């Protein structure tokens, strides 16, 4: 694979991420069920990290997390950098050790990324606020139920990029 391929691959991933973030803010934020809307970023991180090289996806997840931290308010500074980098590491481990990269692997990675996001948010929030387990678990569960089905369109969007620039 040429140097240029690496650049174009991640450029296309970045463009896909921008499209998905636009979909999040224009459509998904208004799509509320049980008081919760689907949350795409962890799904995106899980899907990319499950099929790409571990080191590359770790860097990409950290950069994406940093961008999210600069654009969204979170419980602590750099929350998304930390969460998405950890999710990418987990996804890399799953793809390398437990299952073949593919839709199932991406789904499991996205599920873990969503779970990690929710658990870490609740943990950091509990430092300064009263957070009861049922409240946090309920919110995490609803968020996963609504967000996880989106792995299919995300996977279908990212799959051609992965196939086009697949490392030989």
């Amino acid at each position, binding site marked *: *694979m*040429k*140097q240029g*391929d*690496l650049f174009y691959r991640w450029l296309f991933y970045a463009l896909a991420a921008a499209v998905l973030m*636009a979909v*999040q*803010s*224009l*459509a*998904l*934020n*208004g799509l*509320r069920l*049980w*008081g*919760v*809307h689907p*949350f795409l*970023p962890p799904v995106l991180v899980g899907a990319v990290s499950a099929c790409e*090289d571990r*080191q*590359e996806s*770790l*860097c990409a997840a*950290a*950069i994406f997390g*940093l961008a999210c*931290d*600069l*654009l*969204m*308010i*979170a*419980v*602590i*500074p*750099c929350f998304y*950098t*930390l969460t998405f980098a950890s999710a990418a590491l987990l996804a890399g481990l799953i793809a390398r050790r437990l299952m073949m990269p593919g839709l199932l692997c991406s789904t499991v990675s996205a599920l873990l990324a969503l779970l990690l996001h929710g658990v870490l*948010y609740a943990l950091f*929030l509990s430092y300064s*606020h009263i*957070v*009861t387990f*049922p*409240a*946090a678990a*309920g*919110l995490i569960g*609803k*968020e996963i139920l609504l967000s996880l089905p989106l792995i299919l369109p995300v996977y279908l969007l990212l799959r051609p990029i992965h196939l086009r620039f697949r*490392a030989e």
Partner: protein
Amino acid sequence: MKRFFTKNGMILLSAITAVAVGLCILSAISSGTGFLYNALGVVASPFRAAGGAVSGWVQGVTEHFQSVSDLQARNEELERRVAELEDQLRRAGADSEENQRLRNAMGLRQQRRDFTFASARVVSRSSSNWASTLTLSKGTAQDISIGDCVVDEFGYLVGVVTDAGLNWSTVTTVLDTDSQLGAMVFRTGEIAVAAGDLRLITADRLRLSYLSSESSLINGDLIVTSGLGGYFPAGLVIGSVEDILTDDSGLDRYAIVSPKANVPTVKEVFVITSFTVED
């Protein structure tokens, strides 16, 4: 190509870590909005505005096709409410005149509420389910600063400005877990604290805590800002009591408050940039 990441991956990760740690330190030591956040907000504001416009258009189209029967039922309900309010207004007019006469007779200072408003559009909402924040189209250039109260077109409290850049500002709504407001029960004058709660955020409700054991709160009671400490103006309507409960320990009572402002759909808001309240 793997060699590129093997060689430079650690440098790239170190650079991201350095920026992340820098952001943490900046956020910890700075009291206001950091330069980086301000600059990024300025760059992002046209995109947010464009996104907000598209989203508003989509919502407008959806609302256009809302059922006619729903609208007729709503219209009937509103007409009934207008009649009730007109009756209340007539009685309040007489009460107000009597109040004025008594104040004059007792030599009391006149009540006064002067607010300076800056109108702003909601250009984006928080994507996270764990927080409830809004980004506004105006910032420090329009005298908006951190701590300013934000109300909707009816004067109902939406939230408080928690970040302000040159042409943008972030509002933490009354539903957010970070939101804590000195509140007062309008009917009884009882003081309490209205705060966001993780259990209630998905139901668009907030919690009224620190109620006294002798509290005579009833469902439907209006909750307003207390104005104690002079940080926020007094008398801004937060919401009405929906339910009164006792916590798990059985010792403390709290109320669930339904905010009067429609926080999830509010589009146009007014920031109170300065105020004078004399009671």
